């Protein structure tokens, strides 16, 4: 089931590698606290790079503030009652627009911490070893 959910989420959010450049109105410092309080890190990693649904590298429904809000609220209509690892619904009652925008502002600060593979000795060693193996 988890595999199906992952496919569903991946298809729903779409994949795009470019970081959004749309305007941000929230407060990223407040958003940082809220990001942890609302448990966003559990799926998206402490810096949005890791986990089952990282942001960095594939921003999906984070293209702009309004899109993010729509996605948060819209989940109520698609979320089945069965417990799952899918994105939870966040109604306006539990996550008001202002807080949601603060979270969005914080998410937008995320950047890749990863160097190029060629500059990571461990990863380069893995690829090189595989290439050199006898066929």
């Amino acid at each position, binding site marked *: 089931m988890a595999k199906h959910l992952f496919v569903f989420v991946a298809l729903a959010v779409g994949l795009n590698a470019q970081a959004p450049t749309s305007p941000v109105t929230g407060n990223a410092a407040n958003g940082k606290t809220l990001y942890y309080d609302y*448990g966003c890190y559990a799926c998206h*990693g402490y810096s949005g790079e890791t986990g089952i649904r990282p942001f960095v590298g594939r921003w999906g429904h984070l293209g702009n503030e309004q899109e993010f809000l729509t996605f948060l609220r819209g989940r109520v209509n698609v979320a089945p009652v069965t*417990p799952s690892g899918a994105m939870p619904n966040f109604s306006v009652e539990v996550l008001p627009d202002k807080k949601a925008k603060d979270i969005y502002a914080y998410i937008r600060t995320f950047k890749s911490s990863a160097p190029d593979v060629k500059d990571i000795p*461990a990863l380069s060693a893995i690829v090189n070893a*595989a290439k050199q193996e006898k*066929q």
Partner: protein
Amino acid sequence: MAKSKNAVGRRGFLKNAAASAAGAAALVTSTPLAEAQSTAQGSRGSATPAAPPPTEQQIARDSGNVRPPAVEVRKNTRPGSDLQIQVLRDLGIEFAAANPGSSFEAFQESVINYGNPPNVMPEWITALHEESAVTMAHGYAKAEGKPMLAALHGTIGIQHAAMSIYQAYYDRVPIVMVAGNDADFIPAHTARDMASMVRSFTKWDAEPKTVEESLVALQRAYNEAITPPMGPTLVVLTSEVQKENSPNLQIPRYQPPAFPTIDSSTARDIAKNLLAAQNPRINVGRLRTPEGVKRSVELAELVGACTSTTATQGPMSFPQRHPLCGPGADTKYDYSLGLEAPGAQVAINGPGLAKVAEERDVTHIDFKGVKTPSNFGRGGGRVEKPALPIEADAEASLPLIIDEVKRQMTSDQKARIQERAAKHAKANHDAHVAALEQAVEQKKAGWNASPVSTARIYAELWPLIMNEDWCFASPSGFSGSHNAQLWEHNKPYSYLGGQGAGGMGYGAPACVGAALAAKARGRMVINIQTDGDLNYAPGVLWTAVHHKLPMLSVMHNNRAWHQEYMFVEYMAGVRGRGPERATIGNVLRDPFIDYTKMAAGYGMAGEGPISDPTKLQAALRRGIASVKRGEPYMIDVITQPR
């Protein structure tokens, strides 16, 4: 149970001991030495001015030349438990893991003292919990494809072990268990039919009434455990059958089990089709033993078929980097054979648990996962229309197919096969490198993030062990399964897969079991250990230290049960309530657990916590060096959540 005249129960033993003591006392009071002492004491205070000259006995006593009085020596020269251990030895059982229990002391005494050398085959392994003992056997069996033994103490030991037994049953893993039953000791630890507590999720059990029966029962328990569907078996050994003297009893001749195979005509057809095909494919699932893996390689090489493998998901499958493993030069296969896996034309799959569930689940618990799933035979590969599986053991059937292939193969076919195999080898190599280059682009995400990304743990570790003989024995699902993309799984034991039934408390004890196998074979065991899992029975770390097992544990310490945290968050969202309180019951904070100190408490060397990723590789190097010295090591790494 009716006791034989030679039976020595606890009550009988105590009664005899008391009688022996009384007899010894009587002997003492009648010795000349005692009489002399009495005489000496009696003379004290008399008018006699001088003591009499010492007697010979007094001189002997004063010079330390006293021999104890003759007592009757117990003539239990060949207890039943010695014979039981000999049976296990003959079967090649290497280890017996147990937490001490006062119902199998006779059995334990035989393991540690019987034979030359004693405490070898099996060697007694000290466990701190029965659940750990059985899961050690679980890990060992997955690494070696054969059972070791776990000993359980009466009703309480069986119940302590129950979850592990259940998990091994689900995982179709061979384990032989014995449970002691001492009806004369603590009543609460005995029962009329102990094995019934776990009957629904064991494959076979027995409570033999005589020593001879116990020997047959152990042989059959072994056979039942290793024949498909493999599973844990249990023999309840009463004190009587452990202790009864059996000077003239011969060990029954062992009869190896018969494995269900395909018939000779099917073998002929499969061989013919493999040889006639222009582009045959062999899908290899989880076989039983390393021998089966070897045979699958032999068949693939003989017919030049490209293969699929489940080696990145679990043990006993086709070597991942074998030149024939991969999609091959042409992915339009005109004949595919499944070996414990689906196949478009033929699939050979051993019987599943459903085969034994009806007979064993007499209380109708009806474990849902035991039933053959409706999509059985459709997973594990891109097979458009899988053939209905032939119910036979693929491993036992392989020699028949191989013999037929060798018999039918022409020299023309041989040349064509060699040419095809060479093309597959190049294509598979290129495909692997391409997949790896794609994978590292994904795995580098969060490379320099703190806490440490789970992918970085796997990526830093692999170059350090790729040229070692290693066994990755802990489940990798919760830590990202990065080994599947980054590592190469070329041995039957490279990766031992998941828990079996998803039960926690599995990782560390399974690794200890795998490390028992690894120690004698010059391997090292890698344990990427989730924090929640370790806290079920951390005492197993002590077992690793005590037995000097080659095990490197790297904590995936995310300080929570994140899957459950996410589920509760999700439920709060569905109900229109905020997720702020979803941490309650799902996180390991206030206080954080210090795993390095935990390990140190059990005598295990280690370091951490490490949250700076740049410090990880050096720590891993130190850990591997320690393990190579025979000292298990723990590195506590604070990680990203998933």
